């Protein structure tokens, strides 16, 4: 593999070629420097999102056009502070740039984006990338914010010093995009004027490693040197699936030098980092000028309130309240709208089609199953929007900063807070939001416990049980709220308890780092946040949608077959006769110690599609037609339900036990589908089902048996 792309000669001139393939640019930069905004501005909606095979890191490829109308491919690599990777995201960025991934060819050219308001740290990554010897275009973004804080960045001078094109940008306003596209369209891009002195202590090590990388790992010369330098700061390097490992010889040389330096006490890694920063500081001294003394910035003033020892809590509480309000009230209207339309669709199918199995499959299987999930779409969209807004404005980092101390008590990091909080509404956006957690173990633990935070789908179950549990017609609001709160508390305690347990045992690891940047507050473009929301919702629908459809059909089949011998049997009789009914009988011995009978068993099984299906299943089983929002007829039916011997089935104790079962048990196939996607396999979702349902059984057993013994 030659060092330069095949159509560019060593002097940078274009070689005439009969057919050129589409040039591939990699877009790299620190987190929070507006990279996504730039990517969106360049590619518009022409983006493709997927996963890097074997890793749960998002792969984003988009297309833009040169000034001649030729297509240009851009890979949006995950944000990174350094090529010495400390997280799977950074590992992928490093591997793609070094050409270590067989599924992604090494990019031809690199677009480095930096934040004008803190150039020095941003240039560290650029400095490493310049080692690679690829054509680089530097984009200095957020020039507007720099100007506001009195910072002057001499773009022309920077271009002179580095020898590569430097474009000033305000991606959020679209300024500089045209100039950038012009630069990207250039047929020949100069290579950077980049030479820096490697500290003497490590120079011979670098040379040896470089030689080995060239000979044994078949790296092109410049990449070999860049990689040699990287390996010397790559402590406990993060390796991810899909990247080609180093040859044994190279690893040996590295280990030998590391032992040597450790014996000598040489600060090899630190000296390399320091010499890079020295070079950067020298560069910046002539480039960046701070006009006069500046007072606190707008961000500082906001933070004085947001992270205030007192007001900070109020702000956090306000954000949380807004989150829940939006889920429970704002979503209500669209949810009812969708519900109504789905019901109308089902009615239309019933009218239009001849009665029979196919019609039933469509109405009771497909439409009802998928419809049940679609109804939650407004909530999910709102959550994604909200989380996106929190991320892009910078508040998310503040929330993590405030909650970190509490989170670290259970071995987690403040970044788990927002994902867990969102799970109170629905675990799915919460689990998808765990992508911001760098440490894979912490991320996994957060994903595993997220469903324990009582999601809103459990509410119909709680409400039904509370109605059945309390005597009389009217339920005092305070009691209702009190019991619900109890369920939420139990779930939360369970989540944190298991997080602590997992971090101590199964997923034991070093306590997570809390080295985090607090970016300045920014007002994101509404367009970008909406785009991100639809992108994530689309992903969820695509992945989970197929699984949900499948399970809905299976469940319909289980309740509809075998057919009751009597042709006009009621729904109640049919379901009792079906596979589901038999399954209910089958598991009855298992759930009897919890106070449940086979009819409740059917409900537990059908809840696997979605928790709220329990209510409609109970309606069918107890012969209550289409109860809808009115729980009264169903509640009465439940109160009158008895065991074969005549004893009441839904005693207050059983109602309580059932609620607690729903707090802990893993149901909801949509969540399973998302966990499978986010953990890249079935191992963890299956483990999650096992530990959650197992815990549900044990806890309910204790509650029921103790209560029973006490005479309830």
């Amino acid at each position, binding site marked *: 593999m030659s060092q330069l792309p095949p159509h560019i000669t060593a002097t940078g001139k274009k070689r005439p070629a009969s057919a050129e393939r589409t040039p591939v640019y990699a877009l790299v930069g620190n987190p929070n420097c507006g990279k996504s905004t730039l990517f969106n501005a360049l590619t518009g909606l022409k983006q493709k999102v997927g996963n890097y095979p074997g890793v749960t890191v998002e792969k984003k490829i988009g297309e833009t056009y040169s000034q001649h109308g030729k297509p240009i491919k851009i890979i949006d690599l995950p944000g990174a*502070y*350094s090529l*010495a990777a400390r997280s799977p995201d950074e590992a992928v960025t490093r591997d793609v740039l070094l050409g270590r991934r067989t599924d992604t060819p090494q990019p031809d050219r690199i677009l480095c984006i930096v934040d004008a308001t803190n150039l020095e740290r941003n240039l560290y990554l650029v400095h490493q990338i310049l080692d690679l010897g690829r054509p680089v275009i530097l984009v200095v973004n957020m020039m507007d914010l720099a100007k506001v804080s009195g910072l002057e960045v001499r773009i022309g001078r920077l271009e002179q010093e580095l020898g590569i094109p430097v474009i000033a940008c305000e991606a959020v306003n679209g300024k500089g995009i045209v100039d950038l596209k012009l630069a990207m369209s250039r047929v020949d891009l100069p290579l950077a004027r980049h030479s820096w002195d490697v500290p003497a202590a490590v120079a011979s090590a670098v040379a040896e490693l470089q030689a080995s990388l060239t000979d044994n790992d078949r790296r092109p010369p410049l990449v070999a040197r860049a990689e040699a330098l990287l390996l010397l*700061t790559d402590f406990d390097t993060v390796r991810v699936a899909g990247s080609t490992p180093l040859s044994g010889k190279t690893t040996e040389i590295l280990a030998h030098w590391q032992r040597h330096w450790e014996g000598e006490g040489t600060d090899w890694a630190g000296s390399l*980092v*320091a010499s890079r920063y020295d070079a950067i500081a020298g560069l910046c001294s002539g480039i960046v000028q701070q006009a006069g003394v500046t007072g606190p910035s707008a961000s500082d003033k906001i933070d004085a309130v947001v992270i205030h020892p007192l007001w900070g809590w109020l702000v956090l509480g306000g954000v949380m309240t807004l989150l829940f309000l939006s889920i429970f009230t704002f979503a209500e209207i669209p949810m009812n709208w969708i519900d109504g339309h789905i019901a109308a669709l089902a009615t239309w199918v019933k009218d239009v089609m001849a009665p029979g199995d196919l019609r039933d499959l469509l109405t009771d299987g497909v439409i009802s199953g998928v419809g049940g999930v679609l109804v939650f779409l407004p909530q999910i969209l709102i959550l994604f929007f909200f989380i996106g807004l929190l991320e892009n404005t910078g508040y998310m980092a503040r929330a993590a900063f405030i909650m*970190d101390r509490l989170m670290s008590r259970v071995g987690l990091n403040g970044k788990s807070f927002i994902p867990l909080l969102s799970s109170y509404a629905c675990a799915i956006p919460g689990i998808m939001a765990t992508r911001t957690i760098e440490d894979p173990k912490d991320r996994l633990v957060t994903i595993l416990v997220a469903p324990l935070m009582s999601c809103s789908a459990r509410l119909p179950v709680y409400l039904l049980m509370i109605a059945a549990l309390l005597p009389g017609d009217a339920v005092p609001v305070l009691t209702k709220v009190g019991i619900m709160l109890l369920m939420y508390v139990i779930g939360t305690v369970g989540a944190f308890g298991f997080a602590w347990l997992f971090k101590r045992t199964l997923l034991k690891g070093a306590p997570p780092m809390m080295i985090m940047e*607090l970016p300045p507050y920014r007002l994101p473009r509404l367009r970008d946040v909406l785009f991100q929301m639809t992108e994530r919702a689309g992903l969820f629908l695509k992945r989970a949608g197929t699984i949900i459809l499948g399970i809905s059909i299976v469940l319909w089949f289980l309740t509809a077959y075998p057919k009751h011998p009597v042709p006009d049997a009621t729904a109640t009789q049919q379901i009792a006769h079906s596979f589901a009914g038999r399954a209910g009988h089958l598991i009855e011995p298992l759930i009897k110690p919890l106070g449940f009978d086979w009819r409740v068993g059917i409900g537990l099984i059908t809840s696997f599609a979605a928790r709220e299906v329990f209510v409609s299943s109970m309606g069918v089983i107890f012969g209550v037609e289409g109860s809808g929002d009115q729980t009264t007829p169903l509640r009465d039916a439940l109160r009158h339900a008895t065991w074969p011997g005549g004893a009441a089935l839904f005693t207050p104790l059983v109602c309580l036990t059932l609620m607690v079962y729903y707090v802990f048990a893993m149901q909801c196939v949509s969540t399973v589908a998302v966990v499978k996607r986010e953990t890249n396999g079935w191992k963890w979702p299956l483990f999650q089902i096992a530990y959650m349902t197992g815990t549900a059984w044990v806890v309910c057993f204790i509650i029921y048996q103790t209560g029973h013994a006490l005479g309830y």
Partner: protein
Amino acid sequence: MSASLKLSSLALGMSARVKDFPRTGNTFIRLREMGLLPGTTVTFIRAAPLGDPLEFKLRGYHLTLRREEAEQITIEA
């Protein structure tokens, strides 16, 4: 012989130059790569409402750090 001043003891709003800190471990290499090096000037902005982590300003941006890490970083008096 006074014990060396630690970053964690820096007063609110005050600045100091970093003297030295551990050379090994993921955390400390990453800190260096983020620009916190011996010789860098750092300002202590605030502690989180619960007392930990701590927020510092360096090289034009804000960085958070746990108290136990800041305790291993010495600063010049």
